[in-house]
């Protein structure tokens, strides 16, 4: 199976889940939706940008959410990477404003070698721009603290980390670690 089909399928299911679960067809009528942007650092120092959207499935102290992340990060002199990662989250509110959340997800990583790439075929070298898709399951942990705004919405700084895998990287599972710091805008 093409590995990029997996995150598309999972994304579709995760987006459908909150809508079906609440009998709603409109995101505005869901308990909460948030969007975020942040720094994503593979091994902390390989810089990237993460964009994500959250869809809450309930409004309890123990909350279930779905999230879709779009990440791009670069490893200087090595590779440029784009990760599409749908996730399921369990969020535990420790106070009215603070929470911890654990996530599990499965996505697709597109990796392209950095700089010039030449392919050797039939005795000659020709430039190529293509990279490769990898299956990328992930486990994460994150902390957030909400700051209520006058319009009832909230700004939420988040700090988190995750491990994710790249498969098949030369026929095996290659573990990667990442740190992210982000700001999300929560719409009630």
């Amino acid at each position, binding site marked *: 199976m093409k590995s990029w089909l997996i995150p598309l399928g999972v994304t579709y299911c995760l987006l459908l889940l909150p809508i079906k679960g609440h009998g709603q067809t409109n995101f505005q009528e869901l308990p909460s939706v948030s969007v975020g942007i942040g720094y994503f650092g593979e091994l902390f120092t390989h810089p990237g940008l993460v964009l994500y959207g959250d869809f809450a499935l309930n409004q309890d102290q123990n909350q279930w959410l779905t999230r879709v992340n779009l990440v791009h990060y670069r490893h200087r002199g*090595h590779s440029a990477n784009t990760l599409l990662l749908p996730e399921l989250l369990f969020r535990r509110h420790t106070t009215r404003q603070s929470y911890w959340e654990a996530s599990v997800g499965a996505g697709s990583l597109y990796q392209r070698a950095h700089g010039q790439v030449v392919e*050797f075929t039939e005795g000659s*070298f020709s430039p190529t721009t293509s990279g490769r898709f990898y299956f990328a399951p992930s486990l994460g942990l994150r902390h957030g603290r909400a700051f209520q705004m006058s319009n009832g919405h909230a700004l939420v700084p988040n700090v988190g980390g995750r491990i994710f895998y790249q498969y098949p990287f030369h026929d*095996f599972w290659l573990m990667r670690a990442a740190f992210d710091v982000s*700001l999300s805008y929560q719409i009630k």
Partner: protein
Amino acid sequence: MKMLNKFTMLLFWGAILGSCYELPVSDDFTFVRHKGTDMPVWVKGQTDAEVFLIYLHGGPGGSSFIDIQNQFFAEIEETYAVVYYDQRASGNSLGQSDRSLLTLDQFVEDLDVVVQFVQTQYSPKHIVLMGHSWGGTLGTAYLLDPGLQDKISGWIEVDGGHSLGQNAYQYSRDYVLRVADSLLQQQQDVDQWEKIKAYYDGLTSWRDTEVILDHSGFVTQAGGYFYDEANREGLVGVNQVLLSETDFLALLAQNKQVVLHMDVWHYDFTEQLAQITIPTLLLWGQADGILPVELAHEAQAVLNLPPDQFYIFQESAHSPHYEQTELFNEKVIDFIREHIK
């Protein structure tokens, strides 16, 4: 709200700094793609020189980037071009190459692709191969193909594995046993060294993943990789893990995979070395415990090398280019100057 403002500023400056992080990469850095793998090839030094030295890293499953970042061959680069590359499924190489391609024959084919790349890109008058440890196995196997040897002007073997067979195992085992006996005489770590000695009872070969990993650990304990254990410090630092081009997680994982799946601990090319007719230089550490110096003397005899093409570093173990860098570079430069014309 103050905390939120600080956080927002941190995010902003983090994004700015992150976007500035992209540093220029040399035009002489290329990934060469072949049969499912992208091998990073980095050409450093004098790219208009007549002589290009292609460095074959150890392992199998090592990386040349550690040698680059520690600038072991900086003095050679002042006169010649040095080509570093990471082999299939090793170091910083990328891709989805199948495990069945982890064979010596495939690695020889990959090396020839890199040689052709250098020829195509730079048209040097001479290409010299320099193989360290497993790189010595790879280089020897390459040169034993007459059609491939014709492309190469010189060969430098550094504590190399022209033999990974029975004789290499015995020399290396004997090294560990000699150290064990010496330490037992001094009543040092008696239990530990008696257990290590007992491990070798009835063991006749290292052609087994668990054995080679255990044995390698014993060689480490016996000081067979570094003449001075203090030299180990600084070989891989925080910079290499976090800030360099090295994909350190991949390097570690790939090394493990290659060690587990490459069946190489039986090749013995000693008797065939006479077929290598190009100028050859043997460089070896006197205190090497994994590929002991006896292997160098065997190779010297078969190759019938004159004294200026054979040198033993007295204060080095497995990596004289690391432990006696200046002298090492001097020997390589002298060899190229005298023999590659």
